[in-house]
């Protein structure tokens, strides 16, 4: 039975354990059928089912040990974010299991949970408590969070809808990075913010990693990945292609990308050639016509 299981025990063993993970999305009209499936179990009787299904991720198994920083690389749309969502427990796998030992601090989308109508202060308290911080903890760290986010004190009590998008993101990162959960999931969020803020984010992440926290990072920035990760997962076409150190994963990814670019170039060239030939032919035809 597919499930995402959260054990609270902090004993030894892998922190994140994925076994034969797969998730299925229905395409187009078939989405509606999920209602029907509720009453009629199984889809085997449905002859068209296969064609309308899409598995963004299938048969993925891996383990992450405590203190690891795992980078996930791959092309767009190969299921990297889907994988993170399953680890975070906000998406339930259709196949396989994920076991996560310990609480998860998800940096899946930084503005998440901020209500536009509430002030910065209210939002920090709300989202902080939603992620399991006590009021006292937030009281103690409030100054630090606001400082880190570089929000001027006169804006702290302004509704978040008047914030710039950078301000919202900075406040979100500042808040989530204060969580003391043992596992961090980071999805492509380091790309935001200006240079100075980015540097601060790097420092914060390094501090967390030094604290023996486990991190899973999805990014397209090779510099970030090399900087933090000691392991790399390369996801290709919805399945796990390479599970080694980050260098090898990046190398495999780059090789495939190069091959793809070369292929595209070839295809482009072939196309151009065909177009040229066609043009030539047309011209010849014209010439011939004039000659006649």
């Amino acid at each position, binding site marked *: 039975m597919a499930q995402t299981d*959260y054990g609270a025990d902090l004993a030894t063993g892998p922190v994140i354990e994925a076994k034969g993970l797969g*998730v299925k*999305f*229905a395409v187009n009209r078939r*989405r*509606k059928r*999920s*209602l029907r499936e*509720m009453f009629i179990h199984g889809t085997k009787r449905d002859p068209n089912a296969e064609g309308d299904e899409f598995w963004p991720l299938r048969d993925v198994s891996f383990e992450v040990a405590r203190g690891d920083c795992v980078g996930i690389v791959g092309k767009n749309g190969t299921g990297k974010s889907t994988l993170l*969502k399953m680890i*975070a*427990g*906000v*998406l*339930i796998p*259709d196949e396989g299991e994920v076991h996560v030992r310990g609480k*998860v601090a*998800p940096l*899946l*989308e930084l*503005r*998440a*949970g901020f*209500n536009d*109508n*509430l002030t910065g202060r*209210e939002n920090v308290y*709300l989202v902080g*408590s*939603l*992620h399991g911080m006590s009021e006292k903890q937030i009281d103690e760290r409030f100054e630090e969070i606001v400082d880190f986010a570089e929000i001027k004190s006169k804006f702290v009590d302004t509704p978040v809808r008047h914030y710039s998008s950078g301000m919202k993101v900075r406040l979100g990162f500042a808040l989530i990075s204060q969580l003391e959960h043992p596992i961090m999931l980071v999805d492509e969020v380091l790309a935001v913010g200006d240079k100075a803020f980015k540097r601060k984010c790097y420092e914060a992440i390094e501090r967390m990693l030094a604290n023996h926290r486990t991190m899973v990072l999805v990014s397209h920035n090779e510099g970030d990945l090399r900087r933090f990760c000691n392991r790399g997962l390369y996801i290709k076409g919805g399945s796990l292609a390479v599970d080694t150190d980050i260098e090898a994963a990046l190398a495999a990814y780059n090789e495939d990308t190069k091959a793809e670019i070369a292929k595209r170039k070839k295809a482009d060239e072939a196309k151009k050639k065909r177009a040229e030939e066609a043009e030539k032919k047309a011209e010849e035809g014209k010439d011939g016509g004039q000659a006649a």
Partner: protein
Amino acid sequence: MASRALAVWEHRKVVGLLVRRDLKVKYQQSILGYAWTMLEPLALTLVYFFVFGVILQADRGMPADAPAYGGFLLFLVAGILPWTTFGAILNEAPRAMITHSKLITTMKVPREIFPMATVGTKFVEYLLTWPVLILFVIFLGGRPSWEGVLVWLPLAILLQFTMGLGLTLLLSSVNVLVRDVERLVRIASRILFYGSAILYPASLVLDSPKVPEWLMIAYQMNPLLGIFEMHRAVWFAGFEELTPGPIAITSAVVGSLLMVIIGYWTFRRLEMSVLKEL
């Protein structure tokens, strides 16, 4: 199932936070704020009193000596106030999951807490309408009884919000997959409003010779009929015509329980698809 209930219980604080946030957002940006919670049903009551009481004379179904104890006006207030809350639940139920999609897709919490928070907010708003009701009871000379306050009132509130939670669980999850639900609910809410004897005593229908037997039974099978009759029986104790009959009570209890079971079952059944769609 048990572990799931435990997980929900552990997150009760989150429900409280969401309720507080919703109330804050709602009252923050208006000048009259809380006053609207009372003004809206009040205005409605006056309109309905004029149309149904004065023009259409729906008060002829009232017992003969009821006017001394608040009469048709108190009858209307005692029905419309809880209905405002119930109508608001129905209105927001389909969007209970959709509006929280950002939170649901980034936070690992039992998903049930979002419909629960929606219903919880409405419950607080319902409690806030009580001052109006009490004022009416005092000025119109309502006659509360022990039987009403100790039996009918808690039962009515319990059943109403059980029903509301069941509906919210059902509608919020189905609406993520099929958005037609929102429109359907708007029509259904109108039908229920007029079908639940809020603007006229149920005896007008039950004693009418024109209504066939089967329709009479079907009419009493509506669980909301019993719930709103209970809400009014608190202030009109001892009036045979205004006390819910056995069919109405049974269908109110069974209907509410059934609704919450169906709602939760559907919610869990659709959870996976809902998470993918949000």
